[in-house]
Every structure is written in C-alpha cells, then in structure tokens.
C-alpha cells in the first residue's frame, strides 16, 4: 500500500524533478529571444544552451538521490504517493495532481533525465547554427516536463496530460523546420495517428471509470479517486471480473490501442518513419529513447489489467512479434540512415511488447532501458555523420567514413554490436532474456491461448534477431566501411539560393492601422532568408564535430557497453553456472513491474542446459546476420542497390502499406468527405430542405400574390363567388 508522505519527506524531491524542466521551459520561452538579442548570438546561445541542459541534468541528480533512497527500503515499501492539489474535484470523480514514486516510475525517470540531459547537451552543438535555437530548447524542455508527468502521474488522466503533451512536443519538433511543407505534414501525421491511439486510451479510461464507479461498495465509501492507480490496482482483481469477459478483455485491449499509437506498433506505426523529419536530437530523444517507449511503460504500469485477460496478452504478444519482424524487413529497403534506425526502433518496440505479452513485463522494461542507451547512441552517431556530410542522409553517398570520424565510428561500433545482440553488450542481455522468456513461458500460455502455439512467437523473435543484426550491419558498413568514398563520385553541385522570394513593392492601400512592414524591412528580411545551401559534392571533407557532440556519444557508448552487465548483475551467465545471483534490474522492479497474478516464479523457469542452448542460439543468430552482411557490404555498395528494385524496393515502401493507408484514408476519405459536403450538406440539407422550403413558401406567395390585384371589383367578384359557393355547399348538404 501507498505510504502517506508528509511535507518533509525526501520523496517530495520528485516535485523538483518535475518542476525544473517547467522552469527551464518558461525561461526559454520568455527570455530566449531577449537573451540572444542582449548578449549577442554566440554568447547568448551559450547561456541558453547551458540553461537548457541544467534543469535536466539537475533533475537527473535528484532522481539518482530518490532512487538510491528508494532502493534502501524493503521491496514492499518502495512506493510513495505525493499529492499537490485536486485537479478535477467533483462529487462524482476526483483526480488529484499526485505523483507516484516507485521503482518503475523512477526507472523511467532516470532514463528520461539521464539520456535526456546527454541529448540536450548534444543538441547545443547540433543546433548551434540554427536560427530558431531558443525555440528548439523551449520545446525540448517542455517535452521532458510532459514525459516526466507521463511516467510519474499516479492516475490515468494525469498520465494522459503527459501522454498527449509528449505527442504535442513531438508534433512541434517534427515540424520544427516548418518551412518545408513535408515536415509539417509529417508532424500532422504523427499527431493524428497518435490521436487514434489516444481514442483507445480514453475509452479504456472511461471503461475503467465506469467499472470502478459502479463498484463503490467494493472500493470503499467516499473513495472518489476511481482512476488513481493505487485505488484501481488494489481492487482490480476483485472488481473487474464481476463485469464479465467482454469488459475484462476490452479494458486492456483499449489501453493497448493507446500504446500502439504512442509506441508505433502495427498498424499505427505509420507516423514514426516520417517523424524522422525532425532534427536528429529529437529523433534520438523522443522517437527512440523515451516517448515511443511510453506505451511499453503504460502496459507495464497497468499490467494487472492485462494479466486478467489472457486474450489481451495474446494480442499484445502477436502485435509485438509481427511488428518486430515487419519493421525489420522494411529496414532492408532503406537508403536514409535515419530511416533504418527508425524502423529498427519500431522493431525493437515490438520486442518489448512481445515480452509484455508473455507476462515478462520487467524484461520489457529492461529492453526499454538498454534500448534507450544504444538507440540514442546510434541516432546521435548518425547525427554526427549527417552533420559531417552536409546534412545528406543517403547512405549510398557515404562510405569509408571511419577514416574521418574516429570517435563516431567507435561509439557507433558499440551501438551496432549492442543492438545486434553480441555479448556482453547491453542489447544482448535484454534481447536474449526476452527470447528465453518467450520460449520458457510457452508451456504456460499454450493452455491459456487455445489453439495458438506460443513457439511461433519465439521463432519470429529469433528470425527478427538475425534480421536486426543483418540490416544494422548493412547500415554500419555502408556508412563507415567500403573501399571508396562514394560522395567523391557525385557531380559538382550548383550553388543556388534556398528561398528565392520576389520582393516587390506592389501597390497596397493606405496603412492606417500600421499593419504592414516598411519596404526596407521586407527587403532586409528577404535577404536574411537567402541562405546558401551546402550540398554534398566530390570536394567535401567530412569533419568530426566538437566536444558537445562527442561527450554524449562516449557516455552513451559506455552505457551500451556496460549497462547490460551492470543492470543484469551478470545474472544470465552467473545463473547458468548454478549461482543464484539476483538479477539486479528485475529485483529492483519486482514491486512495481513484477507479475501480480501470473505464476512468474514457475512459468519462466527453465533448465540450465536449455538456458545455455537458448543463449547459444541467439548469439548464433546475431553472428549469422553480421557475418553474412559483412561479406556482402565490405566491398562497398553492391551494384544492385544503386537504385532499389524488386523486393527491396517493395520492402522500403513498407510493402505498400503506407501507400494503401494513404489512398484509403486521405484520398478516398477526403473525396468522400468532400462528396458529403457538396451533395449532402450543401445539396440535401441546405439546398433541398432549407432552400426547398423557402422556395415552396415563395411559390405559394407568388400564386397568392396574383389575387392581390388592388382592384375593388376583383375583390367584390371574389367575395360574391365565394359566398355563392359556400351557400351552394350548405344548400347541397341540407337538401341531401
């Protein structure tokens, strides 16, 4: 149970962690422009960059303190809830502004602030030349705020603030370079597809509310915090089964729709590849390390609802496995270095859901953590490459970059081996653990899932592991190795101006309100826009960026190298030798992410010999993938990939799924809506009904107007005629 927190308690430090990025955001938003104006561009940016990194780094240090204090307690006592005020306070529902400090939220908190601080530091270098430097950090700090709220909130609506808030920041940052309309469209796509997921999240939340509000007798009189985690989790097992199988299954499935949107699972993954339009630090922080793992976090947080519904677990596992292998196949058809990483992110997220689907929630979180290390590293490394290559992201123009970018090369080497699953790097521990748990829990789930054979999931996971190693090797070799520097073969670029805008002194009316700029000001601004665009050409010399770029790379490389070993406590290896060394990460997360209802003690148990074989198989998978692709790409860009054809082209286009969805929803949906507008709204309702009735009234008027002649004789005639008719009628009636 939650321990009430008084105002002196150390757990209240969490408010500082949350409010620091808020302060940073407000500072950047309010003073960003002023400071660069006051101190000059370079000094101003130094101050702003420092002020952007500071709150996140300080938040990380505070999180470390909280986590250490938390770790010092008994496992059952590792939960604090600290409340500020009642956000929604009705007689029928209370939603307090309350934060939850437990091992799961602190795990995420450490990732968000730790990796976040490194990426902020990186961004001070990456964005140094950008015109909208303050705006960038405004959004980034805001993102950290919302992400922390998402992981720390102790009720679903509060989590939903963060959930939609990170979506907003993602939208703003994908569209950061909004003057290219494609970026703006990618941003819209991200927000809208995410909103489809949010719809599921909201309906799931409503269903939970309805269920708990109808069970007042069980959860206790006067308890109106129906949507708070502590209330829901404590009574879920008692309350939910009363409502029958449909409700039991619908709750987790609806929540999972939300997770699918945020964590880019098939078919709602569509937005993530396009999201690469944002600056690379954004891709690293939001679209790899933190935000996209929010779905996994949410499923883990709400795991009790999932455990109640085996069917939902099956769906989670299958969607995860399918997404993993699907996205991995698409990665083979990519030429853009960031898009390879984007699909690999989708694929790795699939792994995490696969783990959750078989009940290994803590393992899923373990992969979230290691993935945050190595995927952030890979993205930042790719950013370094992209900077060095004049912002050209096409791997076909790279080659032999190891010669020019040694630090990037070695750090990305670590990231590559980590994601491929080579021991003893971080990715190996988490991925191997997922595969082994999928395998070992098969016997448990075979009974629960009807005719479905869980071994299929293991095979899919294993094949994906081979594919992951393969496409990452392709990326790595195309970028850093090969006999030639392929950009040397490009044609010499013609220099042209990016935005040629006609500045005309066209005639305009008198400007009485002062709405318009003076002509000189218009001309000055136009000149500012005309920035020369450097393009990659044969004379290009790649140069490795400076300290702010290198330090985060090195730090994340160290995490990717050692993080797995430290967090796993070297357990899989130790355990195989018979030692009962506790798995550090799992023990730490046990109180919050450990299975509540499933027989976790027994369902994942395997023989040591089997464990050995599983490890061997997954290492073998990685080695096969790497070896084959090394063989293929060591000689440089293969002839058949200069222009993508055949299956590779189809794969690159997501097996036409994106195009089909676009056709269906955007084109046909648009045509349908336009048809409704023109034929129904303007035609039937407004035309037929509104104007039709108006016309009818008018027509009657026209007819009767004819009778209003104004001649007395006509009226007299009419009266006479009428009197005769009426009289005649009565006579006829009476005489009958």
């Amino acid at each position, binding site marked *: 149970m939650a321990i009430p927190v008084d105002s002196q308690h150390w757990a209240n430090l969490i408010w500082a962690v949350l409010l620091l990025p808020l302060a940073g955001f407000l500072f950047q938003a309010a003073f960003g422009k002023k400071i660069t104006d006051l101190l000059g561009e370079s000094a101003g940016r130094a101050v702003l960059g420092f002020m952007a990194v500071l709150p996140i780094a300080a938040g990380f240090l505070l999180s470390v303190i909280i986590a250490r204090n938390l770790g010092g307690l008994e496992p059952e006592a590792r939960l604090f809830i600290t409340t500020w005020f009642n956000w929604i306070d009705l*007689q029928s529902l209370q939603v307090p502004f309350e934060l939850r400090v437990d091992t799961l939220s602190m795990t995420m908190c450490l990732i968000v602030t730790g990796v976040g601080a490194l990426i902020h530091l990186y961004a001070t270098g990456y964005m140094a030349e950008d015109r909208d430097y303050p705006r960038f950090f405004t959004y980034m700090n805001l993102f950290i705020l919302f992400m922390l709220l998402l992981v720390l909130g102790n009720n679903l609506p509060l989590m939903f603030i963060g959930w939609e808030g990170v979506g907003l920041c993602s939208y703003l940052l994908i569209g950061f370079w909004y*003057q290219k309309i494609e970026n703006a469209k990618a941003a819209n796509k991200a927000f809208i597809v995410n909103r489809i997921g949010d719809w599921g999240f909201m309906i799931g939340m409503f269903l939970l509310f309805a269920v708990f509000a109808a069970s007042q007798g069980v959860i206790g009189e006067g308890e109106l915090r129906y949507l708070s985690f502590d209330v829901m989790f404590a009574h879920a097992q008692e309350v939910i089964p009363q409502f029958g199988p449909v409700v039991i299954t619908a709750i987790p499935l609806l929540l999972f729709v939300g997770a699918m949107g945020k964590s880019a699972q098939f078919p709602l993954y569509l937005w993530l590849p396009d999201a690469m339009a944002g600056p690379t630090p954004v891709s690293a922080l939001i679209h790899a390390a933190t935000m996209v793992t929010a779905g996994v976090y949410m499923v883990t947080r709400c795991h009790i609802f999932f455990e109640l519904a085996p069917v939902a677990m099956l769906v989670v596992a299958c969607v995860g496995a399918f997404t993993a292998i699907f996205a991995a196949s698409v990665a083979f058809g990519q030429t853009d270095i960031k898009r390879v990483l984007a699909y690999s992110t989708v694929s790795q997220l699939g792994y995490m859901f696969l783990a959750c689907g078989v009940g290994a929630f803590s393992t899923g979180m373990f992969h979230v953590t290691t993935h945050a290390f190595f995927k952030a590293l890979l993205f930042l490394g790719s950013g370094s490459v992209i900077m060095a290559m004049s912002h050209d992201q096409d791997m076909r123009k790279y080659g032999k970059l190891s010669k020019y970018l040694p630090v990037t090369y070695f750090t990305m080497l670590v990231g590559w081996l980590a994601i491929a699953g080579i021991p003893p790097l971080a990715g190996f521990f988490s991925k191997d653990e997922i595969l082994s748990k999928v395998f070992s829990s098969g016997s448990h789930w075979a009974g629960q899932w009807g005719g479905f054979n869980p071994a299929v999931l293991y095979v899919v996971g294993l094949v994906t592991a081979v594919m992951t190693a393969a496409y990452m090797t392709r990326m790595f070799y195309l970028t850093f190795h090969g006999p030639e520097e392929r950009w040397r073969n490009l044609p010499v670029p013609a220099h042209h101006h990016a935005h040629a805008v006609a500045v005309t002194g066209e005639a305009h009316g008198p400007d009485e309100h002062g709405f318009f700029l003076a002509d000189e000001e218009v001309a000055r601004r136009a000149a500012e826009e005309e920035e020369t665009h450097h393009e990659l050409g044969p004379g290009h010399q790649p140069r490795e960026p400076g300290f702010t770029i290198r330090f985060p790379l090195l730090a994340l490389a160290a995490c990717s190298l050692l993080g797995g070993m430290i967090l796993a406590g070297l357990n899989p290896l130790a355990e195989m030798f018979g030692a009962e060394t506790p798995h550090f990460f799992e023990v730490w997360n046990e109180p919050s992410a450990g299975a509540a209802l499933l027989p976790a003690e027994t369902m994942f148990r395997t023989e040591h010999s089997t464990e050995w074989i599983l490890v061997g198989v997954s290492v073998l998978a990685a080695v096969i993938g790497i070896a084959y692709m090394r063989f293929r790409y060591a000689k440089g860009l293969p002839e058949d990939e200069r222009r993508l054809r055949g299956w590779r082209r189809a794969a690159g286009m997501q097996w036409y799924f994106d195009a089909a969805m676009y056709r269906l929803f955007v084109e046909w949906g648009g045509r349908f809506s336009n048809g409704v507008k023109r034929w129904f709204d303007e035609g039937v309702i407004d035309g037929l009904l509104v104007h039709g009735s108006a016309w009818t009234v008018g027509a009657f008027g026209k007819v009767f107007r004819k009778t209003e002649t104004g001649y007395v004789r006509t009226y007299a005639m009419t009266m006479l005629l009428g009197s005769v008719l009426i009289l005649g009628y009565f006579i006829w009636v009476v005489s009958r």
Partner: protein
Amino acid sequence: MDNTGFGLLSLVIFMPLMGGLFLMLVPKDFVKVHRYLALAVTILTFVASLQIYRAFSGNTYHFQLVESIPWITSLGITYKVGVDGISLWLVLLTTFIAVISVWFSFYVGERAKEFMVFCLILETALIGVFCALDLILFFIFFEATLFPMYLMIAIWGGKNRAYASVKFFLFTFLGSIFMLVAIVALYFITQEKLGEGTFDLIAMQELAAAGDLAAGTVQLWLFAAFAVAFAVKVPFFPLHTWLPDAHTEAPTAGSIFLAAIMLKMGIYGFLRFCLPLFPEASIQAAPLMMGLAVVGIIYGAVMAAMQPDWKRLIAYSSVSHLGFVMLGVFALNHNGLMGSVLQSVNHGISTGALFLMVGMIYERRHSRLFKDFGGLKRQMPMFSGLFLLIMLSSVALPSMNGFIGEFLCLIGGFEAGFNGTAGIPIWMPVVAGSGIVFAAVYLLWMFQKAFYGPVDKAEIRRLRDIKVWEQGLCWGLVLFVFWIGLYPTFYTSKMEASVNALRHQTIQPPDARPAWADMSVDVNGRGDVVEVTGRDPVDLGVWTQVRVLVPSEHHKQREDTEAVVARRSGEQP
C-alpha cells in the same frame, strides 16, 4: 407576489443598454468617444458582474440574487431574474467576451457608433437570457438578441451578408415560434392547476417536481417545441446550416458573440427549461438527442475538414464541439452535466478566441481563404504562438480548458451508456470519442495551411506581427484556457449544487425531485438531497441540514436509502 425591487443583477443586465442609449446621444463624428465609451461600459459591466460572483454561494442550488417585480399582473408576467450555478458562469462569460468583442471592434471604421450601440444592446439581451426566470421575460430577451445580431450581419457583414442575415433570422425565429406556443400552453396548464396562470419558471418547476405540470404526450410535445427552438441555436444537426453562413459573413465581433455566447443560449435552454420542466420527456428523448449529438460531432468535424474558408472551418468545428456538450447534457448524470456546463464556457473562450484571431488576420489580409495564406509562423511568430495555444485548447489537449469539458462530457456519456441510463447505447459515446481524432485532423490541417510552409506570397511577406493590445486580448483568453484547464475546481465548485439539483429534478420520480421553490431542501457537498431546517435569509448558501432525502449515488449509505424508501411509501421514518 412580493416586490423585491431592482438589484445587482438588473444593474448588470441593463448597464450596457443604458450605455448604448447614452451613446446614441453622442454625435456620430466622435468615433473615438464612441469606442472608448463603449469599452468603458463593457468593462464596468464586467466589474459589476464580478460582484455577482462574489455574492454567489456554491452551497445551494436555489436561485440567488433573485429580483421579482410585478410587471403585467393580469397575465401573471413578472420581471423576475436570478442566477444559479449554471447561469452564473454564462453571465460572467458574456460580460467578459463583450469586453473582448467591443475592444476589437475598434477596427470598425464604418458606422462605428451604430456598431457599438448594437454590441451593447446585444450584451444586455444576452445577459438577460441567462438571468430571466419568467418565461415571457426570457422569450423577450431571447428574441431581442436576434435584432442586433441580424443588423450586425446585414450591415457590417461580408459579401454574402444579405443572404446570411436573413437565413440566420428565419432559422432562429421559426424555432422560437414553437417555443412561444409552448410557453402559452404552459400558461394555460398553470392556470388549470393553480387557478391562476403564471409564466414564473420557479412556480412551473414546482408543479413539474410534483409531477403535475404535464404528462405523457402533452409533455413530449411541449418538450419538442422547446427543443426545436434550442436545437436551432445549439445548432443540432440537421438544423445547422444557418451557422456557417452567419458566422462567416458576420463581422468579427458578431462572430465572437455568436460562437461564444449565442450558441450557449441553446444549451442553456435545454438545461434551464427542457430538463426540469419536462423530465420524463427528457429521459425518453435522451437516446435520440444523444444520437443527434454524436452525428453532429462527426459530421461537423468532417465538414470542417473540407472547408476552404477559415471562418467556415471554425463554424463547423462549433457544430462538432457543441455535439460534445449535448452529449453531456443528455447523459443525465453528474459528470456529463458538469461537463456540459463547463464545456459551454470553454467553447466560448476557445472558439471566441479563434474568431478573434481570425478577425485580426482578416483585418490585415482581407481574406479568409486558406489559399491566400501560408508561412505565417515565420512572418508573425507571436500571433502564431498564441494561435497555436488557442487551437490546442480547441483540440482539447489535456491541461487546457477544452480537455476538462470534453473529458467530463465523454466520461458522463460513457457512464450513461455503460449503465444503460435512459436506454442510451454504449456505442454512441464510443463513437463520439472519435471526435477527438477528427478535431485533430481539421485543426492541424488548418494550422498547417495557414502557418506552415515558406513565406512565398508577397502579401504575407509585408505583414507585421500583431500589436501589443491585440496580444493582450489574446493573453486574456489564454489565461482562462489554462486556469480552467489546470484548476477547474474554481469553476466547478460553484456549479455542483445546481447541477446536482438539476439532475435530481430530471431523473428522480415525481415526489423526490427537489423544487426551486422549496427552500426546505438543498443539495449538500456530497451530492445528497437533504432536508433543511434553518436558512440564512440573505445568504442562501448558509443552512443547516437535518437528514438526507435522496442520497448521492456516489456515496451510498444504507440508512439513507431506507429513509427514502420510507418517505416514498408515505411513512415517517
């Protein structure tokens, strides 16, 4: 009938009218005098209306600051005004929005005097609508809003103003004819039941609470007559087609008044008249109304996405947003009704602000078509930032006002569907929830078309960012966006008692319905209907409770339920 004399409410209602009459005396050449004087009057009215807030207690559902003055005694017509938790915020919204509208109308150059006068007359009529407790008085204010708005559109409107103004007038007028018939019918019913006819809402509701006002088919017809009048105003699909034309052609201040307040007259009408006076009919009609609301949500959103015109898009978005409000009303539970009242205020702020900001850009660019825009974000960063905030509040981003309202409406609707209240099927709120996806579609498209992309049009390249005072107006609205979004309790705490009573008036069987006339009952802080012994004659919110008559379903207590059973079966416990 006692005569209380005029008081604070009358002051707030008629201050703008007095100001308007005074303005008429000022020669029309003194444009600046007209502008500043009108602004001063609206600000004074706003300040005066804050006194209503100060005097208002959230502890009681009874009408407060009631003024009752015999007017046409032979027909039982009284000048009777008062506020409760439902009308309080709408009155404050009106006085606040009036300041914004009048201030922005400084840009009106042509016939500035008449424009300001109409704004002030309109304000009086709108406040009157929300305060009137006599049906004839209500009808007079309700119709009185038509004329200034009609003239605003017809004189200062866009190209198609003649068509739009007539359409607006006819739609509303036709709807209210039905209402007038129903009001007269109600008079005769009261004459029959009480011996003496009256148009007093409180007296009528007392009859309704006892189940004596009208029953069966008669009640259904009366409900329908009122509902048509209000459905046109809301507007309900398929009675909405006047709205895009009127909003689009109206001058900025007119659009703001229309969207922010006049649409709320429809919602308010449902809450104030339809539910308490015709409870059985309301329950019977709930699935139909909710169905129409769901259609409106989706339909309005789809239509909005297809509009090439900035103002038409926002107009259709109102159809969608007010669908959420109606969903909340006919959920007939606490969450839904609270959501609908709050969302009425929210929509007034968000959509009012959207029209205000479109007005700002229209003053400069003289176009509302998206094809004439693009790249505004680069050119006008402050305007874009503010517009983004307002747009997001309309998207209902959590932590902003729109979220609280829509969340409560939807959660109420879902609860009703889940529990099968009034035969509402569960799919309706589920489908309605998809409105949040559509809202993102049309609003983000709007933002993309106008603000993103390169600055490639020479007319855009000339634009200066908005001025400081215009920013001030926007920040004023943004303040409420976050205030309601982050601390809605400030607003909801004053509504709860009235909303709770309204719900009991609607869903309880006849003898368990609290009556406005019956000062010996009230609603306590937990939502129970309770019997009251002592009450402060001045501050109605100060009272002492004896026992629970109808317990809140969120705090069920065994003894109290027994008490109610005993009470219903006629025994004294």
